[in-house]
């Protein structure tokens, strides 16, 4: 699972002036032909910087995203769901490892990335700053947050950077289990007793605003990313991905007789697109900048895990071992 809506740095086009124009032209031609860029190819600094930022955020999201669901392993209803929940959380952490490795091939070490996560410099998907109150919240995360992640990851797998695409192919294959498992958990509750139905309805109501935030600010207000789209770093606009998600999942939520907390939400027959109430982007910014219900807890838990595990890594250290950047 993973949050979309990457927070790209504003691209400063003047930075490109410092690049070798011939190499830059060859680089762009390669991407235009649909060829992948591999780690030891020449690439503009801006491409490298933005990719590290994006893949690193993705990796952090996998690690932090395991926390709200991990909470529910001990209280999952029934052995089969407990085993599945555990497998899912383990998958997410594994995805984090795959992604850290893909980012490392660009020159930032895993240590530096983990450091920037726990000192608050790097971001992770905003949606994980919200709490999972009940088992139904966990089921909604497994189904709809993963669904959003799949929309995003399927697009990004077609991106231009070889190691990231390869990692995403692997990740997408595992995500299909998460989605089906999550859907099953939600359907089980939604077709159950009135109390169970109420639990799902409350969870949907709680998660809808963060889900609408999930793909990032509206194209009208988000930073210009034309060059990142041309370089196939960003594969679709935030609004396009949001539309795709709504198209695929709103009908599936409605068929369970659930209500989405947005009176304006409907498919516009003329435009073929979904109309909705503009999400509260001020809240989105506030939570990203640290003022969400769980930001503090997520980072505190991650920091503690890191500190508590330090002695193990120290014990494993070998003075002669030298770190080298992974190859691909």
């Amino acid at each position, binding site marked *: 699972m993973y949050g979309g809506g990457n927070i790209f740095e504003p691209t400063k086009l003047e930075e490109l002036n410092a690049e070798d124009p011939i190499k830059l032209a060859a680089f762009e031609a390669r991407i235009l032909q649909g*060829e*992948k860029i*591999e780690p*030891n*190819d020449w690439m503009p600094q801006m491409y490298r910087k933005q990719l590290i930022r994006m893949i690193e955020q993705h990796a952090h999201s996998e690690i932090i995203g395991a926390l709200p669901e991990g*909470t529910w392993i*001990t209280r999952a209803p029934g052995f*089969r769901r407990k085993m*599945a929940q555990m*497998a899912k959380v*383990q*998958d997410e952490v*594994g995805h984090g*490892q*795959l992604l850290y*490795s893909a980012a490392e091939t660009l020159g930032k*070490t*895993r*240590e*530096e990335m*983990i*450091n920037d996560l726990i*000192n*608050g410099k790097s971001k992770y998907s905003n949606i994980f700053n919200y709490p*999972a*109150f009940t088992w139904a919240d966990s089921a909604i995360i497994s189904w709809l947050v993963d669904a959003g992640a799949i929309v995003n990851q399927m697009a990004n797998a077609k991106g231009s950077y*070889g190691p990231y695409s*390869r*990692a995403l192919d692997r990740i997408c294959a595992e995500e299909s*289990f998460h989605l*089906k*498992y999550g*859907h*099953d958990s939600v*359907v*089980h509750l939604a*077709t159950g007793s009135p109390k169970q139905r109420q639990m799902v309805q409350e969870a949907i109501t709680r998660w809808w605003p963060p889900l609408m935030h999930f793909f990032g600010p509206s194209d009208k207000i988000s930073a210009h990313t034309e060059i990142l789209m041309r370089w196939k770093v960003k594969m679709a606009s935030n609004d396009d991905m949001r539309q795709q998600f709504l198209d695929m999942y709103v009908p599936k939520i409605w*068929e*369970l007789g659930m209500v989405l907390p947005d009176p304006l939400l409907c498919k516009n027959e003329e435009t073929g697109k979904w109309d909705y109430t503009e999400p509260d982007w001020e809240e989105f910014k506030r939570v990203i900048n640290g003022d969400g219900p769980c930001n*503090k*807890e997520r*980072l*505190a*838990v991650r*920091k*503690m895990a890191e500190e508590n595990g*330090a002695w193990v*890594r*120290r014990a*494993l*250290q*070998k003075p002669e*071992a*030298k*770190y*080298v*950047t*992974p*190859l*691909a």
Partner: protein
Amino acid sequence: MSHLVSLDPRISRLGIPAEIDLNSDKTLSDQLSTFEVFHQKKEGAVYQHVGPVHANTPDLAFLFAKEQYSRRFTCTGIWVVPTSSISVTPNAEPGVNIYSILNFDHKFEEGTPVLFTVFHQKKRGAHHECMGEVTAASSDEALYHASLKYGESGPVVNVWIIPSEKITKSSAEDVEFWNTLSEKKYRDASVWRVMDKITKFKEEQKSGN
């Protein structure tokens, strides 16, 4: 000092201070070295690169590789290699065979001939695949022999040359590690079927139950 209170009682019990110091850096001293992992999808298939792991010894790398790359998808074998022992060629432009632009005019280092394993990346974006072994006194010379032996085998963008003795390989009996995967059906997408429940639910709604 007050403690962090969470919805998860296990986290509340940890007694983490409510105010964490976000500005402190972690000690950047525990970065382990990296290994590249290769797997064999099924008996008889060629070994293929799947990605790296961080570990201090080949044994630990093997353990991590098994978790990371064969936890969900079965395979019949795994190799791990220290990244630092792999020699890498530049990447060829599309349509160009990398061997055709390498220069083999110089004299190779002398020494005792040993085995080297050759990996090819056939196109950008693809995984590196094992071609076989050559005998040489240096990785440079091994690359030259690889060009003679495998250079005509089709498109090659990039070549890895690995001293074969640096490869830690799973053994025949390790295959049993991967025989347990079929017992873990609960993590297969195909076992979570919801259509019957949804159809039944819709019918009940229609009939007003």
